[in-house]
């Protein structure tokens, strides 16, 4: 049998019993290391819990997702119309060799192409090039040892594009995924019809509506959202939407007040040179807290001329510019100064993002931006 590289499951090296579970004949070198290293071992300490625990996240989640039933209903309706058009192309025989992710926690009958999966099915796998579809009564999760776990909600369609040692890529055409990623930052990417989501060490929920627009909410770490040179960084507690051909909107913390959020939405939707945009921007700046420096940092590169100067003035008042940053430099969008200013927000080190930019080709768009919809089905060549 040919041994595949990096396939831990199939390799099963011979290992001494002592190294595995301390049974069998003791290995003197391992015993010596155990004895030497014992001084670094965990020593029990009392865990001091805070007097008050924050409200359970589940209730917060319900609040945040109160609009989900309506979105889900719309998705179900549109999918009911759309799925018959997609099924013929997903019946192509899929390649059953090469890298694959485990499928678990199956509820209902998700499909890989025309193949129906069921809850009692063991060792189900999604191979590179295959598409997993859930309907309104099914869900599943994907996992990969070195990556993490991705839960796929009902009415979703995901395709596994890549599963190399350092680059793993999914395509989410429609629906919702919840990702908990433990791979190093920058290694896991999700393509959506309107942006690429790059994991920067985190857990997040990504939703794509049938019209290709999307929303991301980060619960741990941060995520980069990218399209056509337009980037948004979304740290824990923040969210960001994205639209086809436009790309990521301006991210904001979900605890910002309603006037701020509404004005930001209006600003993102308006013609930047319009009175509507100017009015909305004025409200955003007036309502911003220092925590909303996240939003103001993004607005620096999304405004021009006097509007950018206004944003800078408010931003600098809320978050003092760090050493090495000048007003003139920021107004000219000096990349190094913008990076320094981002790091001053203490939301995630931007060098992680720059490293991802250098090691990939961020100028490329998600395939769904380049291909007509009918070409999204799995291809025999993959």
């Amino acid at each position, binding site marked *: 049998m040919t041994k595949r590289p990096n396939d*831990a*499951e*199939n*390799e099963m*090296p*011979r*290992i001494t019993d002592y*190294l*595995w*579970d*301390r049974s069998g004949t003791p290995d003197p*070198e*391992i015993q010596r*290391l*155990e004895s*030497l*290293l*014992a*001084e*670094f*071992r*965990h020593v*029990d*300490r009392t*865990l*001091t*819990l*805070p007097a008050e*625990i*924050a409200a*359970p*996240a*589940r*209730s917060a989640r319900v609040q945040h997702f109160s609009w989900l039933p309506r979105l889900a209903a719309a998705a179900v309706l549109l999918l009911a119309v759309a799925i018959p058009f997609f099924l013929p192309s997903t019946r192509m025989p899929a390649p059953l060799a090469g890298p694959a992710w485990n499928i678990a*926690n199956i509820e209902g009958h998700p499909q890989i192409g025309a193949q129906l999966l069921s809850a009692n099915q063991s060792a189900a796998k999604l191979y590179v090039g295959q598409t997993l579809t859930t309907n309104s009564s099914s869900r599943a*999760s994907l996992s990969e*040892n*070195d990556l993490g*776990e991705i*839960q796929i909600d009902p009415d979703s369609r995901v395709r596994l594009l890549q599963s190399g040692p350092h680059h793993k890529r999914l395509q989410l055409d429609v629906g919702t995924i919840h990702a*908990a*990623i*433990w791979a*190093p*930052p920058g290694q896991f990417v999700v393509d959506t019809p309107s942006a690429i989501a790059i994991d920067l*060490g*985190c857990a997040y929920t990504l939703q794509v509506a049938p019209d290709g627009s999307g929303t991301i909410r980060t*619960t*741990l*770490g941060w995520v980069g959202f990218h399209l056509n040179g337009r980037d948004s960084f979304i740290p824990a507690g923040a969210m960001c939407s994205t639209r086809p051909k436009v790309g990521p909107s301006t991210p904001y913390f979900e605890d910002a007040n309603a006037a701020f959020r509404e004005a930001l939405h209006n600003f993102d939707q308006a013609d930047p040179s319009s009175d509507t945009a100017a009015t909305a921007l004025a409200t955003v700046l007036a309502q911003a807290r220092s925590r909303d420096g996240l939003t103001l940092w993004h607005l620096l590169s999304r405004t021009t001329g006097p509007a950018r100067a206004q944003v800078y003035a408010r931003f600098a008042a809320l978050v003092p510019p760090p050493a090495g940053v000048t007003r003139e430099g920021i107004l000219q969008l000096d990349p*190094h100064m913008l*990076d*320094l200013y981002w*790091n001053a927000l*203490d939301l*995630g*080190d931007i*060098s*992680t993002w720059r*490293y991802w930019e250098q090691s990939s080709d961020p100028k490329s768009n998600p395939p769904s931006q380049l291909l007509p919809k009918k070409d999204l089905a799995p291809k025999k060549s993959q």
Partner: protein
Amino acid sequence: MNPPVATPAASEDALVRAAQRGDRAAFGLLYARYARMVHGILLSRVPYSDVDDLVQDVFLQALPRLASLRDVSKFPGWLAAIARNRATDFHRRAKSLDELPTDVPDESAASAPAVPPNSHSRTEAHAALDAILSLPETYRETLILRLVEGMTGPEIAARTGLTHGSVRVNLHRGMQQLRELLGRKAASLTGGEL
């Protein structure tokens, strides 16, 4: 009335569910069961002198987020991910005190233990830990859990959410590389060729 679940004999899933409902005793038992794993994961990434405080941080970060964990059986991998992210965050915060680097830092260099080598055995212990920390990340985490924290292979698999196969491979390859590394160091000290 629900029976009390926060007993040492309670199943992991039951403890996680109880902790999700706000049962502090259940959370305390989870801490007792998983502190070694979290300690080991952190020790493989951050200086030894900071590990204890970060272990507490990890559990305090996990507590308010626990209710959002849908599948309680995923608790081990979920907690391990928080620990790894906390280590990354530690380096980010430490780095923000310095000038912005031009590249991503060399994590293995940054995670050298801050233990004053004030005796021969401590120097040896320091050197052994140093050698493990110079190994690839996957191997050093598993080896630290085994050699420092004293967990067995099956325990490591159960606690981290890794498969037995992955743990077996990491232990085998990691130990092989560690033996080679320590052998080379010993040879250089006794004047042998590398």
